[in-house]
């Protein structure tokens, strides 16, 4: 039993890392109804800028963060000005296509600035297993103490960061005036314009916030796997999370990430042996595919409202 729990918790914590990436997608989808294909590239760009600023410009770590953030915001504002502005009121598919183009551009830009080397990223977060028996908390299962050995301090901190990020975003979207305007823009560009919501400002804000989220995700993933081109592919990992949680729900991104993370690990351990192992890599996609059949809008996604 405690082995099961260990796998489960390990999976949940790994899932949080997916959630971090998925959040960026959700933000842009909520505010423009567009799947931002470039989110993975933005994660890569952010992480590479962070280490590049330290390696090449010699910035200390505390200065590298605001520097990267500023660059991400600049990228967001420029994206609005150059890429999105001519596409106001165009069908979502055009906007989607333009984000594919943006992906290649951002990837290239990042490597142009900072080179193609693989960098390690050191955040000073301890990355070591925490052995807990929970005994001192008085938690046990049917008298048997639970021993968790594979829980990692880094994962715990990642989970904590994700939690804070989600809380901030949820408050921002649900309560603030700008958050409400963001949701309004996602629903209907024209109507938003007609009530005086400045679409351009709103989009610049959204892309900047998405840049911020990409930076956080980039730092966490970079610290985990090193900063390399493969970072852009974490975006693909976020896909099943989005399908499960819903493309337009911040909460969905988190819960989806947790479920996908846990499913992957459990499947690897309990189903994997029948397939000769290694199913962790594709199991999430299969799960997402099956889920699409049952609930295409995701667990927490907005239902398409059609009046007949």
């Amino acid at each position, binding site marked *: 039993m405690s082995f099961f729990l260990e796998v489960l918790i390990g999976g949940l914590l790994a899932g949080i890392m997916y959630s971090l990436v998925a959040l960026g997608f959700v933000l842009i989808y909520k505010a423009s109804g567009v799947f931002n294909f470039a989110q993975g590239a933005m994660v890569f760009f952010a992480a590479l800028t962070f280490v590049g600023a330290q390696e090449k410009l010699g910035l200390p770590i505390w200065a590298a963060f605001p520097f990267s953030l500023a660059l991400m915001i600049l990228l967001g504002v420029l994206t609005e000005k150059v890429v999105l502005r001519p596409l106001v009121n165009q069908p979502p598919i055009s906007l989607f296509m333009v984000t594919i183009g943006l992906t290649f551009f951002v990837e290239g830009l990042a490597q142009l600035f900072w080179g193609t080397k693989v960098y390690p990223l050191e955040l000073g977060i301890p990355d070591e297993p925490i052995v807990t028996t929970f005994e001192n908390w008085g938690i046990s299962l049917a008298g048997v103490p639970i021993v968790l050995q594979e829980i990692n301090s880094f994962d715990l901190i990642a989970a904590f960061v994700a939690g804070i990020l989600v809380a901030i975003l949820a408050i921002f979207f649900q309560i603030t005036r700008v958050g409400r305007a963001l949701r309004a823009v996602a629903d209907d560009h024209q109507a938003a314009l007609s*009530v005086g919501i400045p679409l351009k400002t709103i989009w610049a804000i959204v892309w900047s916030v998405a840049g911020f989220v990409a930076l956080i995700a980039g730092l966490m993933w970079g610290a985990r796997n090193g900063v390399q081109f493969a970072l852009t592919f974490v975006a693909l990992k976020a896909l099943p999370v989005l399908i499960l949680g819903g493309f337009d729900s911040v909460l969905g991104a988190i819960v989806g990430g947790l479920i996908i993370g846990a499913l992957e690990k459990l499947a690897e351990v309990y189903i994997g042996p029948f397939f000769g192992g290694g199913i962790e890599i594709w199991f999430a996609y299969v799960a997402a595919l099956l889920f699409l059949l049952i609930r295409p809008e995701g667990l927490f996604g907005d239902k398409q409202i059609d009046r007949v």
Partner: protein
Amino acid sequence: MQQDGPKGNVLLDINNIEVIYDHVILVLRGISLQLREGSIVALLGANGAGKTTTLKAVSNLLQSERGEVTKGYIAYKGDRIERLTPSALVKRGVVQVMEGRHCFPHLTVEENLLTGAYTRKVSGRVLKADLEKVYTYFPRLKDRRRSQAGYTSGGEQQMVAIGRALMAMPTMILLDEPSMGLAPQLVEEIFEIVKTLNQREKVSFLLAEQNTNVALGYSDYGYILENGRIVMDGSSAVLANNSDVKEFYLGLSTTGRKSYRDGKHYRRRKRWLA
């Protein structure tokens, strides 16, 4: 031009504007009209006559549809406004309620209303008071304040759209086809509210309608558009009694029923080309 309309300062002055979409499609061919403060002015005409485009030229929603005012000018309170963004216009008190309601379906009714106040940076207390005021005009919305707007009825959505515009504290509302797709009883209800808002809140309305009968009943002055031109204008009472208007737009005729063929012939010969 407008001799028998209501008195008051000219709030909106559209002077001989031409609107072209996508640099090629000429939609308005020289429209001039005036709206006096505190009045309801109706724009009438068939599909494609240019009513919506005229409203969008004023609110500058044209911009996002690749349309542009290429000739003439639009003045609001004496200032030229053709180059202002929709957001700047809302700040000045010009709000458009678009054809087909355009509520935000996933936002609740109350959130929809609140988005209308986006351009006014006011405290929560003021917003609450304004919400209550909107609810006094549309009591039905208060009952449904927590439901997603997408799930409300067509009439309620029209109310949400008008209420949302009210939250911007407008001087002038550009109201596009409020009667579209609504039951006759609801149409009356909506127009009654428009009239009340006009009298109590002193909001002026520029109203585009196909329902000529109702529109002339509730407006002070009317313009009739055809093919991007104004072919006739006059106070609503006069227009409602004009024999051509009766025949073409109200389906009434003084000479009794004519065969379809005669009607067409008559119409062809007597076009109101300016």
